[in-house]
């Protein structure tokens, strides 16, 4: 019988993150369709609280690698923990949420186990032909459905691709698993987390709206002058009113590297597109950005798209946005902010 192992890292003995519950929901569906058994592998400093939270998920086993050494998100200790759990369960499938922590180790883990890994998986289906996955190639420009013969098959499932598991809490019995962190891995110490230098958290993965600013915000306007400070105020104000997540085109964030006038609230972490991120939001509003293909591929998972641009022939007009407003973004955003301010008042 196949065994499906799901891996969850636990932060401060808290309830599993939403992405972990989504992964659990997907794994349960696959297990039921395949008649497979489900096992849960937990890694972290303290595990019981998280395990209790999902005690009624139907897993036949809860295994844990627990201890202060496994609190840090570090390759050497995370892979040692995951490997130990996998060797204790001998799984056919290993499913992990595509967090930065698991993404860092899943391929190495599959290599150690003699299996294969697929990352950035957006769908997981069990059918007559077995399990198939969907994932994107060439930076979200084409979608493939595939299956493979190698086992164990380690799968990192993207967030927002499956309904989270919902169920009752209880008391889970965790089987402790010993994992040895090699001395060489201890050459790395995690010292903390650093927020973007802009000082304001502008990347909000859970926001409903994505607001994208392009390089046009820093270009000369109709008066022949640049207005970067005003642009920054308008964008900052809009983010405050809407709690939107802030994205950028590559050309805008590259300006800072080239020493040109920039928007200080923007870092390259905000970059959307081919060499940036591909976030998931219900709505996206693009301003002063041409919507060329390398940028627009980052909008693959934005459901409703609107753009403001002075050029009626820009990329957004060619089937990439639902609505293109041919207008000056400075004028429009001034009015938008005024309306939002009036609404809040």
């Amino acid at each position: 019988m196949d065994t499906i192992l799901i891996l969850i890292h636990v932060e401060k003995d808290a309830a599993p993150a939403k992405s972990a519950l989504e992964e659990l929901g997907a794994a349960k569906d696959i297990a039921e369709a395949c008649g497979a058994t489900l096992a849960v592998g937990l890694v972290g400093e303290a595990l019981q609280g998280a395990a209790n939270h999902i005690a009624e998920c139907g897993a036949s086993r809860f295994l844990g690698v627990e201890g202060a050494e496994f609190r840090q998100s570090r390759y050497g200790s995370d892979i040692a923990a995951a490997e130990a759990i996998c060797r204790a369960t001998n799984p056919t499938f290993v499913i992990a949420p595509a967090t930065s922590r698991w993404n860092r180790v899943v391929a190495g883990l599959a290599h150690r186990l003699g299996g294969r890994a697929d990352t950035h998986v957006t769908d997981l289906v069990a059918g007559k032909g077995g399990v198939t996955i969907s994932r994107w190639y060439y930076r979200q420009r084409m979608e493939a459905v595939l299956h493979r013969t190698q086992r164990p098959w380690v799968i990192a499932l993207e967030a927002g691709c499956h309904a989270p598991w919902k169920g009752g809490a209880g008391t889970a019995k965790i089987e402790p698993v010993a994992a040895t962190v090699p001395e060489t891995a201890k050459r790395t110490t995690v010292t903390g987390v650093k927020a973007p230098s802009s000082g304001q958290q502008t990347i909000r993965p859970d926001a409903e709206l994505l607001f994208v600013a392009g390089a046009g915000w820093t270009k000369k306007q109709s008066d022949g002058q640049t207005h970067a400070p005003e642009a920054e105020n308008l964008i900052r104000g809009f983010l405050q009113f809407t709690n939107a997540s802030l994205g950028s085109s590559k050309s805008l964030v590259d300006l800072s590297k080239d020493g040109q006038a920039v928007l200080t609230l923007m870092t390259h972490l905000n970059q959307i597109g081919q060499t940036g991120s591909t976030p998931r939001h219900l709505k996206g509003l693009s301003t002063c950005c041409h919507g060329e293909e390398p940028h627009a591929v980052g909008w693959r998972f934005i459901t409703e798209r609107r753009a403001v641009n002075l050029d009626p022939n820009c990329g957004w007009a060619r089937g990439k946005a639902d609505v293109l407003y041919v207008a000056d973004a400075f004028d429009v955003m001034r009015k938008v902010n005024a309306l939002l301010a009036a609404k809040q008042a």
Partner: protein
Amino acid sequence: MSTTYQIVVCGSIVPDPLQTLEPVPGATGPTLKNEMMLPAVLDPWAWHALFEAAHLAKNAPGSKVWLVSLGPKAKLQQVMMTIAQKAPFELIAIDGSASGFTEASEVAATLAGAIKAIPGLDLSRLLVFGGWESASRGSGATMQIVGEMLGIVNQFQGVDKLTIGADGSIEILERIEGGKHQVSICVGPPAVFGWATGSLPEPPNNPQVGMANMRGIMPALQKACTSKVGAEGVTFASVALPKQRRDTKIVKDLSTDEIARDIVSWITNA
């Protein structure tokens, strides 16, 4: 403390991002329509890794940069013409597929083999650089497996910055969720770094660097060994372009006030 590094950058080629890509069935799996005709560039994140490697080597005299590149020899030659003027490196070319539909594990085995074959390779000075994901397969798997094959357990992905400390330790900023960076300190080499955007601008062309590089690049291409990488064990049920071309409504005739009201209404309606 002054350390000299052996920095190996793994970087392949991808189609120019402005090209239209269309998947078509090939003899052994999916491929791109007219793949050999598409203009190519060095994979963007590997491009950043190469700049960062050159920058680090420049600041640690005695260090050296190798670029290990797997791709069709003719395409590699074209791309090297462009990047040769950017940074000094020694090319190790491997003639093989650069397709995104190949397996990361097969590519990694080829790269690790090429790295192990570097004369005088010293693990205690080795830093393996690459993009954290390719712009083709986009799996973020290859560098991890290369590291495993080289026995390196200090690995970092989504790296935006490296700072060498006075004691030779390396401070690393890695991308994590929510637009933040995890900060780690690694005692020193060997380590694997999958680079994100980094923090350096594209270097200007330097004809002298280009001339020096080209003296090594052409022989490296001539003696490139062939590697047959594929996707053993994988069956692609389908590969398709998304059917999501939108019927764009172009609004030209509304006043700014009307546009603003329309946008606010759209934003605030759930």
